[in-house]
């Protein structure tokens, strides 16, 4: 496999008057879970369709596993797996038959199919229910099965389009756990679109943020947090009145200060020494119970990036 799983250069796709993907350039290294983040309508699904060679770009080019997505689309599809917007399962068939069909599609031998289906369904905890019609399954179980189908033929790269969208917390966590475990165990590159920032933060080795088809930022979640948001101090206690807030806002090391969910949140400049600030607050009568240092979450970074773009 190449060092770079996906290489995109100036990729553009227009739909009549709408530009869905706008000059996107990106490299996705092999062997990581790559998060492709953006709000609804940002161009995430269109990008996946372009990378799978299902759509032709208006301009630019993309290479997946070293194959041109336009000239060698069949080669791309032969080496990748996909879980798209919908699970895409045949609900009148059993779980086993759904996987059996795709095993045949990928030209796996009967012995390979049998072993792999057992391995994946056992891993997902649904082997005992393999003969049941998929239509009778819960949404979370269907999504797990769809994930198993995407990984069935051991592709080096899989595309997952919002795999936990619409699932309850328990089902989403189960799908996320399976995805993480399988990705690590099988060393597969995952191109994951999501607008769940906690999911991206937990799973992704690298993320790209797009808005209106344009790339806004790319890097490790920590890098994005460091680039977009500085250090943060959270103080729990009592006595956070206007005088304290006004005093904090006059300090040069404080970027912003405010009360959130009954705690004081202070955004600081890089390299700020926290101890004098805590002493200052105690001296003004604040009763401090707990002090936490942290950084902005990926969700806050994402919102900041979206605001900047506006």
């Amino acid at each position, binding site marked *: 496999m190449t060092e770079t799983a996906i290489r995109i250069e100036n990729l553009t796709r227009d739909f009549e008057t709408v530009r869905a993907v706008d000059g996107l350039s990106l490299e996705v290294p092999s062997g990581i879970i790559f998060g492709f983040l953006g709000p609804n309508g940002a161009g995430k699904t269109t990008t996946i*369709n372009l990378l*799978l*060679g*299902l*759509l*032709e770009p208006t301009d630019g080019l993309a290479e997946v596993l070293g194959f041109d997505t336009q000239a060698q*689309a*069949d080669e791309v*599809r*032969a080496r*990748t797996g*996909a*879980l*798209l*917007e*919908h*699970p*895409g*399962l*045949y*609900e*009148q*068939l059993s779980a086993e*038959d759904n996987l059996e*069909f*795709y095993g*045949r*599609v*990928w*030209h796996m031998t009967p012995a390979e199919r049998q072993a792999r289906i057992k391995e994946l369904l056992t891993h997902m905890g649904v082997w005992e229910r393999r003969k049941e*019609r998929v*239509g009778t399954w819960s949404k979370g179980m269907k999504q797990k099965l*769809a994930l198993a*189908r995407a990984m069935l033929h051991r592709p080096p790269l899989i*595309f997952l389009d919002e795999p936990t969208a619409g699932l309850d917390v328990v089902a989403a966590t189960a799908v996320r756990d399976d995805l993480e475990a399988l990705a690590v165990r099988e060393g597969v590159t995952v191109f994951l679109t999501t607008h769940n920032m906690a999911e991206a933060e937990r799973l992704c080795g690298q993320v790209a943020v797009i808005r209106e088809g344009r790339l806004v930022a790319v890097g490790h979640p920590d890098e994005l947090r460091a680039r977009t948001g500085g250090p943060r101090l959270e103080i729990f206690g009592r006595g956070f009145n206007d005088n304290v807030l006004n005093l904090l806002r006059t300090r040069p090391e404080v970027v912003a200060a405010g009360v959130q969910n009954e705690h004081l949140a202070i955004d600081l400049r890089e390299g700020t020494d926290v101890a004098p600030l805590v002493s200052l607050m105690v001296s003004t009568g604040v009763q401090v119970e707990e002090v936490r240092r942290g950084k902005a979450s990926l969700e806050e970074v994402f919102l900041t990036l979206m605001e900047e773009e506006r």
Partner: protein
Amino acid sequence: MFSDILTVMWKERKGLLRYQGSRTRAVLGLLIPMVMLGIYLPLQIGRALVEGPWSLVASVFIPMMSVGMMIPESFAGERERHTLGTLLASRLPDRAILFGKVAVAVGYAWGMALMLLLVSLVMVNVTHWDGQVLLYTPIMALANVALSLLMASLVAGLGVLISLRSATVQEAQQTLMAATLFPLVLLQMIPLLLLNVVPDGKARLRELVATANPTQIILIVMAVLVVLDLGLLMAAMARFKRARLILD
């Protein structure tokens, strides 16, 4: 490519055995026409079913009805049930998907029509036994075998094109039924026109029937169907392309 077609056929066949999720529905879908056309009709019509052109009714209508139900389920159904995207994202060639689906629908309809002809023949012989086995004439046997296949292919080709333009299975089935029944209604109107509009229509119609060569008519109809089938199949091949399907 051939193994890919077989794979698609395997999936279609599995789905067929669980029509709308139920094996009972699938069996009923097979039994009802079998009882109506294979048992009830021979009982009513008797020897004329084998000796005359009555058997052509089953050869025309069975493929029309069963392919008319199956092709929209297979093509428009993939889109309606959101399974098409995943299928297109796989390594299956466009033509393997198209041919695999069409082959199962046509094969099922053709097989059913042939089975009905056989059941009808047995029924007529059993209920109207006169010491001699009654058989279809060679030209009628050929007409039944060929017409049922050609009709199934015709409705399949038309069904693919209609299904690709329909938002739902129901819409595709209704449009396809209308499109296949309309020419038959028109054909029925020709004798009526001859009778009522053309001067001396009755005499002319009688003359036409008396002088017509059934073998020639059957061969002409089959030749027209072959041309139509090929045209529709080529149109379906041109239309059934990933880049177009993903945008529909």
